[in-house]
């Protein structure tokens, strides 16, 4: 595929892997190289529109796969390494080339012990709220974001609800919710 070739040319070693699924092309880049990679994709290949960015929590998927391989091969060691070696979170950037109308999905993997990612707000203003939402829902922090605070949940909410270990019915946080206590709201 020509697009794949072009991406390899501009990203070089930063293009860790390609992944094609249902007609969508995903390219994985290292977490620390995300901003230079996006910049070069924007300037060289014309992916000048950021459609969206969001997080994915893969922990349940790894657990399921580990369980499956345990059952299959009775190999406990392998199963354990699978769930512990792969980073827990993903952030996916949906890019769009406005002249050729091609789409590209850029993926980074974010391990649980290092949840800081460089912010894309310097490249696109559009990254502002999606990054705040990603922080709100997954706890991934975006370094260099102008105003990283919760977007959909309230400020004192103790958890990150889209993580797989957060229960669907919630944990009863709304019962001791304070509406804008002093020092946190816009009013201060």
């Amino acid at each position, binding site marked *: 595929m020509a697009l794949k070739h072009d991406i390899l040319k501009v990203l070089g070693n930063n293009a860790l892997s390609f992944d094609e699924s249902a*007609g969508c092309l995903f390219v994985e880049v290292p977490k620390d190289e995300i901003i230079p990679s996006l910049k070069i994709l924007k300037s060289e290949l014309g992916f000048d529109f950021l*459609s969206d960015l969001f997080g994915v929590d893969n922990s349940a998927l790894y657990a399921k796969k580990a369980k499956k391989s345990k059952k299959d091969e009775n190999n406990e060691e392998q199963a354990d390494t699978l769930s512990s070696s792969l980073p827990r979170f993903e952030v996916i950037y949906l890019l769009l080339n406005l002249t050729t109308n091609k789409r590209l999905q850029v993926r980074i993997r974010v391990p649980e012990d290092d949840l800081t990612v460089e912010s894309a707000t310097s490249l696109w203003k559009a990254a502002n*709220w999606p990054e705040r939402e990603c922080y709100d829902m997954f706890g991934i922090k975006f370094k260099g974001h102008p105003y990283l605070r919760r977007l959909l949940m309230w400020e004192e909410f103790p958890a990150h*609800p889209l993580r797989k270990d957060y229960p669907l019915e919630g944990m009863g946080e709304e019962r001791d919710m304070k509406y804008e206590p002093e020092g946190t709201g816009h*009013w201060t």
Partner: protein
Amino acid sequence: MGPVKQRIANEDYVTINVGPSHPAMHGTLRAIAYVSGETVLGTDLEIGYLHRGVEKLGENLTYHQFIPITDRLNYCSAIANNVAYEMAVEKLMGLDIPIKAQLIRIIMTELSRIADHIVLVGILGVDLGAFTPFFYLFLQREEIYEIFEWYNGARLTNTFGRIGGVESELPEDFEQRWLELKKGLDKAITETDKLLTRNRIWMDRTIGVSPISAQDALDWGFTGPCLRACGVKRDLRKDEPYSLYPEFDFEIPTGENGDVFDRYMVRMVEMHESVKIIDQAFKMYKELGPDEPLMAKVPKIIRPPEGEVYHAIESPNGELGFYIKSDGSDKPYRIKIRPPCFMIFQAFDDLIQGEMISDLIACLSSLNIIAGELDR
């Protein structure tokens, strides 16, 4: 202290809280406006009042059970949401949808596009003090809802379609109903046009209010009518053609200045274009035999293969996309909705800086922010 407050720290201002429960805010939105005299220096936005955790819910429901939830995103055009979600799942499964089902989907989506634009134009008029066009238009919207109701029993939250096709054919006397509706719609749009477009007061209130340049709009991630109002000819129906849209002949209207007036005009013209599409789609529909299938071959329990997909359609508001990750089970592993007005609303502070406080309402109205899809 947020960036907006830092910017105006040296100014003398009064804080005015608009919303979340306020008749002029469309749904539960909250804008905290810092005004000096009547000029808005900046606004802080607070959203999330209608956050229902739709994405979390989606992870715990089967693929078919999620369709009714998508109704509650943009509730002014629920059918567009249903179709967007179904198409994303179908793309993930690699299904081919029968032509008849595609045509019914197009007819229904375009009807809901007209209904959505009617809400915008009508309410924009009400917000600016013009009450009459609201009635002209809403009478026709009622007729559209009659058609929806009579197709599958629901008016607002349609739960239209199934994964792999649609549930039933168009009712037998659709043609007659559509011809009547078209006549009424034409009349209502023309009269609204006569009442508003060249009206001195309307022009004063809308032309040059909260303009945005094409470059800024793209930087902010604008799509749909708000982007087209800035002069960017971009419509997913033409640019990334899906379904049968390449077969139809229709125009993409664009504006120039990206102000409230252009956003209004783009939508007025788009309603006419949608009527044209429905006419052509219905002509194709009539040529199909009665025995044409409505559903592709779909298993009873939907288990898409492991993988991920992003698919977007042109909803009345702009690019409505669904990212779905499947782990091979009967429930999606992750669903992410890309609502068009989420991206548009984050630019609100930029749009409204230096405008009058009354124009804040006009600007908000013209962006068509729907809280259901904004907060999910």
